């Protein structure tokens, strides 16, 4: 049975998620189809149907620290198969966005750092820059040696670009990032 401590009830999170996704969480009747189809449910400590139930019961910010939030692969099988049409993957996406500045612990693998490193290169060059992104992510996680065995072959085959894209007009891109920063917190 899924329960939460009375002291941790925080209907603010449920309300926020419903407002940002447009999803009515109360229509979930726990059929667990989302969890059955989820490719990482068997590897994660919390399954998608449990996230839905915990939100419904009024779980608070501690939900943002559940491993599924960042283990979710965004495959959207849950959303596609929900008999009530709930965009479960959209709910997970909102939980991820709410982890910014929430004080939630860094998830294993630090996907938020990967995303920041990726997006930073997009903001600067207009397109992602592999070498810059990988270097920033590896330095940040301290996992310097991961995958280095494949780099020489991938470089030789041209599968990793040595230089960033050049000559792309980035004025619009920079304005998008600036607006996104201004809006954060107001419309995540």
């Amino acid at each position, binding site marked *: 049975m899924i329960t939460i401590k009375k002291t941790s009830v925080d209907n603010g999170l449920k309300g926020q998620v419903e407002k940002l996704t447009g999803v009515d969480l109360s229509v979930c009747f726990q059929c667990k189809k989302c969890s059955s189809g989820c490719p990482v449910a068997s*590897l994660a400590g919390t399954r998608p149907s449990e996230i839905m139930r915990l939100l419904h019961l009024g779980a608070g910010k501690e939900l943002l620290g559940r491993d599924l939030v960042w*283990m979710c692969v*965004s495959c959207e099988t849950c959303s596609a198969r929900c008999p009530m049409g709930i965009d479960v993957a959209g709910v997970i996406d909102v939980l991820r966005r709410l982890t910014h500045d929430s004080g939630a612990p860094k998830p294993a693998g630090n996907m938020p750092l990967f995303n920041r490193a990726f997006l930073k290169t997009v903001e600067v060059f207009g397109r992602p820059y592999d070498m810059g992104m990988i270097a920033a992510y590896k330095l940040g996680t301290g996992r310097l040696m991961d995958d280095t065995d494949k780099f020489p072959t991938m470089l030789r085959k*041209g599968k990793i670009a040595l230089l960033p894209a050049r000559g792309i007009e980035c004025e619009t891109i920079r304005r998008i990032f600036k607006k996104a920063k201004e*809006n954060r917190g107001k419309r995540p």
Partner: protein
Amino acid sequence: MRYAYFPGCSAESTARDMNKSTYAIARALKLDLEEPRGWTCCGATAGHQTDRLLAVALPAANLSKVKDMNMDMVVNCAACYNRMKVANHEITTNADIRRDVRDALDRDYDGTVKVRHFLEVLLEDVGLPAISKSLKRTMKGIKVACYYGCLLVRPPEILKFDDAENPKSLDRLITAMGGLSLEWPCKVDCCGGSLSLSRTDVVLRLTESILDMAVRAGADCIAVSCPMCQINLDVRQQDINREMGRNYRMPVIYITQLLGLCLGLRPAELGFEKLMVSPADVLKKMEVYSHE
């Protein structure tokens, strides 16, 4: 036929072979692909996991460029295709988002550019009869597991690409090329591409189960269309073999590369040398030799 072709950023790194083979078969089939000038990143998974405006405005920056070109946007990267269509959907159904995107782009984009996957162009505009007539070679005797992944088919109500649970687009092409497309259960399973660098442990489990099923089905190769799936299934085989004690040597080949061969193009024109797991056995069965 002319199209605004959005290559996507992987076309400049991990998926140069996809891009090269796409252009090669477009030339062979007389499809005119024109890239929007100065196209930029769609934001990919990082965008939509981080911020809703980034998720919609980054694709919209490109869609608005294509709006000025007055053509359909054709995309071959499943991730870009997905983000472009979702952005169109958000902009046409949510006035607040449309306004935020307008402020960010400094122009109003109405969400009406038609976004199509390159497979849709092949199947609908060129058509299987015309493709069959152009074949110089066939895939006779080659068993293919067609793998679609996630981003091409989900969310189904927005993408409306084929059947979300049992798509047949790739299978129909393989059949038209004389190959044997296999019935197998992993067509739309997820390979975990977005976690490839951050949670390699999870990704190895997901890719292993897909490769395992392709082997059990008797596949000579896996045919893909998505560059995230291709690199993930191809490059992770050596990790799986080392860490999980397996012995996979399953070529993971873009449909555009396979079609290119059947249209009589040479492997080098289609970027075959860039694949990590050697496709030599498949090429040999098709009586294609790399010196050709």
